[in-house]
Every structure is written in C-alpha cells, then in structure tokens.
C-alpha cells in the first residue's frame, strides 16, 4: 500500500465523508425504510411512511440541486445521464403523490408502495453505477467533501426524523404531504446555497 494512493484522488473510508458517501448512505437508509413501511401496520406504518417521504424529499432535492448539475459538466455524456436520472425521479415523485392519497392500510397502498420501491431502488442503483462512481473520478475530492458539508447543513434544518409522540403519526403525514415536503426541501437548499456560495 502506498501513502500516495490513499491520500490521492481515490477517497478512503476514513477521510471525511464526501457527498457521494453521504448520498450512498441515504440510499441504504431509504432501502431499509421501505422494508420498515412494508412490515409496519396502523399508526406505525403512517409514521414510517412520513419519514420515508421526508427522507426522499431531502435526498432527491440534494441530488437535483447539487449533484446532477455538477454531473452535467463533469461527465462524458453528462446531460444524457442526468436527464435519465431526472426522468426516474419524476416517475418516483408521481408514484409518491398517488400513494399519499391512499389509506396506508389498503391493498392499493401496498401495490403502489411495491412499485415505488422497485423504481426508487433501481434509480439509486443507476446513480451509483453510472453517475457517482464517475464523479469520484473526475471531480476534485475537496469539492465533493465541501458539498457534503453543504448538504448536511441544509438537511439539518429538515425534520428528517419527526419525534413520534410530539405529533401523532397521522398528523405528521398531513403536515408533510409530498409536494410540500419537496417544496420545503428546495427552500432549504436555496437558503443553504445562498449562504455558502
């Protein structure tokens, strides 16, 4: 092992996590949260679904506002890669909008949820395989790390983990409908960027 290589362009696990580490970590959280929603019933299901909506909102917004614009310039064929990802995100958002109109205990909800899960996991997989690994190769590591700080700052103000008991699980769902959750996430990023850039 040479020091040069570990300290060079290839990020290592012990360095400060960069924006890619952060987003991959969220992919794993999203993946496990889907399993949690599927397994839960009643209020616990509504609560887990509320957390899923919030996490998807901040996560997808971070990608749309921060990572995809960078990928357009930095990757060969970046526009096509990003357009394909945005189309997947749009499809997921539509499914999410359909889901929130349903009763979380209904069979329809289960079917839509299963479809959303497959779409979101495939989307995450495509990002990791076709976008993230190439960003690591082409973008300055310091820039990727700085972006992680920015994304964390924006997300810190989002209610990613609402406290059960403070509001009822149902209330969480009604105060955070999908469109509002994404709007709020976008505002947070706009603020964070104007403060940083």
């Amino acid at each position, binding site marked *: 092992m040479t020091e040069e290589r570990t300290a060079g362009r290839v990020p*290592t696990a012990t360095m400060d996590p960069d924006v890619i580490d952060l987003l991959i970590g969220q992919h794993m959280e999203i*993946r496990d949260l889907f399993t949690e929603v599927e397994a839960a019933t009643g209020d616990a299901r509504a609560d887990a679904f509320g957390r899923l909506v919030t996490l998807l909102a901040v996560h997808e917004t971070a990608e749309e506002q921060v990572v995809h614009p960078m990928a357009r310039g930095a990757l060969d064929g970046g526009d096509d890669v990003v357009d394909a990802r945005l189309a997947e995100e749009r499809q997921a958002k539509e499914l999410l909008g359909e889901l929130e109109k349903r009763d979380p205990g209904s069979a329809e909800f289960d079917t839509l949820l299963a479809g959303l899960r497959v779409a979101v996991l495939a989307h995450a997989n495509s990002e990791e395989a076709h976008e993230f690994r190439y960003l*690591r190769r082409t973008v300055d590591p310091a820039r990727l790390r700085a972006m992680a700080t920015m994304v964390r700052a924006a997300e810190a103000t989002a209610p990613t983990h609402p406290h059960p008991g403070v509001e009822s699980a149902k209330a969480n769902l009604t105060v955070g409908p999908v469109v509002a959750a994404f709007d709020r996430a976008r505002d947070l990023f706009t603020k964070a960027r104007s403060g940083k850039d």
Partner: protein
Amino acid sequence: MTFNPLEERGIPLDRQLRTWRELDVEPVDPDHADPYTKCRIIAMNGIEIESIMFGHNFTRVCPDLEVKRQLAEVRYIEQQQQKVVNWLLPGSASPLETTISYEQVAVDLTAWVARMEPDPYLTQAYQFGVLEDFDHLYRYANLYELIQHRKAEKIVDGLTEVIPGRPTRFHHRHPADNVREPYDRTTVDPLSRLHALTIMAAEQQTLSFYLNVGPQYMEPIARQLYQEIAMIEEEHVTHYESLVDPGETWWERLVTHEYNECYLYYSFMETESDRRVRAIWELHLNMELEHLRLACDLMRRNDGREPEEVLAPELPNVLTFEPNKAYLRELLDTQIDLTTLGTGYVQEAHERFERMQEALMGGEDPVSDQVVTRHVEQFGEDYRVETEGPHPDPTLRRREASHR
C-alpha cells in the same frame, strides 16, 4: 420412501434446451429474499461451474469423439442451468453485498458438512476451514459498513453470527502446508465424496468471484482486502481438493459430479422457502437425473464397473442451510489457534509458518486488520452481529476505541 436418483427418470436430453426467453429469469428481491435462498443460489452456482469445468478438463484428455460429443451436449445444458441459477441474484446488490452472502454460504455450508461428515480426518479439515471463512465474514462486514454505509445484519439477518474467527492474518500459511491426505476411494463412505466435492466447488467459485470483483472497487482498502482474502481462497481450494483421492477414474468422477448435482437440487427443492425458486430446483433436478443416467451408461461402457460401486445406496440426509451458531462457538472455543504442518494440524506457530508470515507482512498489519482498525476509528467499535453473548475467546471480545 427415500428418493433414489438411480431409479428415477428425468427429462430426455433432447427436450432440455431452453430458449432465450426461458433463460431470462427474474432475480430474487435483494431485501425480501430469505438469506438462505441467496445462499442456495450461490452454492448451486458453484456446483454447476465445477461440473462444467470438470467436463472441459475431461474433454481435454478424452480421445473418444463420441464421448466428447455427449459431454458437450450435457455441458451445454449445464451452462444454461448455470445462467438460470446465477442470474437469480439481483443486479442491485453490490459485489460486496454478494460477497457477504458468499461468506455466509461458506460458514453455514461448511459447518453443516462438518457436522454430518462420517470420517474424522475429513471432519477436522472442514472444522479447520470453517473458522477461517467465519473470520472473512467478519472482515467483509466491517468493510461493508465502512464503504457502503450499511450493516451486514441486513444481509445475514441474524441467522449467522458475525464475530471474529481465527484471525485472517494467521491464515497465510506456507503453501506446502495446505496439502492434506486424500481419502481412500476403495473404502470411503460415498457421502464423504459428495461432501468433499461440494465444499471444493463452493470454495473454488468463491476464489473466482473474488478474483474478478476485487478490482472493480475504487477504495484501496476494498481492493486490498479482496486481494488478501483471495490468496486465502487459493489455500482453501488446495486444502479441499487434496482430500479427494486422485486415483478416482474420470468415469467415477463424472458420475459423482452428476449424482452430487441430483443430491443438491433434491435437497434445495425440499428446503426452499421461495416457491418460484423451488420450481427451478425441481426442474433442474429432473434434468440432472437424465445427466446422471447418461453418465452411468458411460461408466458401465468404459470403466467396466457398476456406478452403484461408488455411489450411495440411497440419497443421504437433505443438505440444509440452517444456523450453526452453537457448533461454531464450540469450534471457536477449541480450535481457534490451530494451524497446519505437513498434512496434519498443530497448535504452535512452527518455523515454516513464521517465515511465511514475516515474508508476506513486511512488518505491517495486513489489510484484514486495518479494516477493523479503521472501523473502530470511525464508529468507536468494530462491527459485529453477536446474538449469543460475548465471544467465547476472551482475547477476541470487543475492541474499544481506546485502541486507537
């Protein structure tokens, strides 16, 4: 009624070919599939690949054109079977995630075989090996949380513990000490042949998998860990293949391969929880019965012997993926400090072992240690799935961040 593969009729060979559409199987779900379904897929892929490569090796030394043609026909079908089996793995699982399933196979398959093996020398070989695979699972699980930010318990699902085994750094033995004594083909229990072939095939596939996916990672620590553990898989393949009597004829080996495939497909059909996957095991069993019949005919014609002389009179106990936690803890308690010397096992680090270690390490910690050190630095402790209490060996109980 016990199932006797020699008496069952399968699907005629000329009706076994599948279309592209039939080969295009839907993979299992990475998060909903039973971890042991994934283990069965991985194990069976190793068995199919061994069978295919055996067929190629046989062909290379076989002067009889007719025999080579028949081997080629059967092998083509086995290649299709391999495509169906291995393509059940989900594309959305990263190589490292699949690696953790590979190690779960190595642990629970080898432990089960060790428990069932009638011959004490062979049992010792499996017990020795399983403590090493067990430690690989622990090292890869630490890497998984470091680079993929997820816990391996989501993959092994509490069925297999993730705690230190014989530390990986001590697996690097002098290559001459990896060669064991073979069983005697004239006296061996037919079940022992099947066990040796199964574990050899599984380890060989694990070796190939690591050889190919290791360089796909960007993170230096991942690339290096695959290199280190792949070198140990080379040792394991040497260890297990040397258990097989080299005096077995090609015909004898051919029928053993085909019989073993029947045994495993039957076992997996009997124990599979996923209905769709179960149907594949059943279909493939019905194909293998015919491959076995053809192999038996070749043996009768060319070896002048009856296959019954080398095969079991009835199918052994169904090979089962199940937790082996208590068994593994007992081995951890009694065999963790073993190494090999010649074809046997010793407790002390002998001179040839020490020389090999010094030459390899170059005075530094191997990456299998570094991955744990880094995990401790980043998360405050190493990653474990410890469901049955503290580690049986006090020196391997949890390392705290004070080690930093």
